[in-house]
């Protein structure tokens, strides 16, 4: 079934990316953006919307070096969304088969994940199909990406409340998002 028909409304949700050039990694970024957006659709759409606002406010505050971008930021943003929508229709077919890219973007090497899974089986004899293994890989990939994306949102929220604004992800951010994240997975 064509991917487009299912979630155009979801994809409209803002990606978590600040409006900056994405340079060489663009196809990957596209893939990730649509993946995360869709994954988030279950419960955090509202959050995502606020994050866009936060993001823009954060840009206004952060530093003088970025003040030039301010005027253009919203427009670039909407442009980008359209680009992504178009791209995600055509590009996955072209780019996903590239194995180099796939290995590059996976947070956990498959052998390590395989080992970790088997370590935690209670029954030594339990096996896992190759296809299922690939799917678990994707699952963990989404999990880690979600964690980082949500941490970024938390960081912006904290910065907005007058906390530290050093552009660092802190453990506190992770602590705030962990319960919901684990519930969502």
């Amino acid at each position: 079934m064509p991917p487009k028909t299912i979630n155009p409304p979801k994809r409209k949700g803002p990606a978590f990316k600040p409006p900056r050039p994405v340079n060489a990694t663009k196809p990957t970024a596209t893939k990730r953006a649509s993946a995360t957006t869709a994954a988030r659709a279950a419960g955090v759409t509202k959050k995502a919307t606020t994050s866009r606002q936060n993001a823009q406010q954060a840009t206004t505050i952060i530093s003088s070096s970025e003040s030039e971008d301010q005027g253009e930021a919203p427009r670039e943003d909407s442009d980008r969304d359209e680009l992504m929508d178009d791209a995600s229709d055509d590009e996955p077919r072209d780019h996903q088969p590239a194995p180099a890219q796939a290995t590059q973007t996976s947070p956990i090497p498959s052998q390590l994940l395989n080992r970790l899974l088997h370590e935690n089986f209670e029954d030594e004899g339990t096996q896992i199909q190759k296809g299922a293994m690939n799917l678990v890989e994707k699952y963990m990939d989404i999990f880690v990406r979600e964690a980082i994306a949500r941490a970024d949102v938390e960081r912006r929220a904290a910065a907005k409340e007058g906390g530290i604004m050093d552009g660092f992800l802190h453990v506190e951010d992770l602590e705030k998002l962990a319960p919901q994240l684990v519930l969502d997975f």
Partner: protein
Amino acid sequence: MASNEAAAEREERLKSALWYAIGQFVDDECINRNLNATPRFIGALTELVYTQIANTSRDLETFSKHGGRRVINTDDVMLLTRRNEGLEEVLKKELDRLRAEEGRGADAQPKKRGRPSGAGVAKGKGKAKQ
């Protein structure tokens, strides 16, 4: 006692490996997002991911046992997403993509067979499950 220690050490080593992998990934991701992450953040994220993997593997094992199998198949993995529609959609697409890559239909039907990992998933002409 000795085996306990050995197990603990093995777990530590696996965690270190995971830490390294997660660290690499977080660094890449941070460059893309123009961010930074504290080392403690990476450590905490590693713990979170490790726990999640442990839970996942126990879930998968339970699911396949419930299905009367000893081999985890893709249906079991799809069950992980039962509470999150968005996630289910994404994984389903990934599943379809993987099958398309296999280039010969899909297996889907839980006709488990003790295939050793390393062999392809797809076999038989059965079409998409569920």
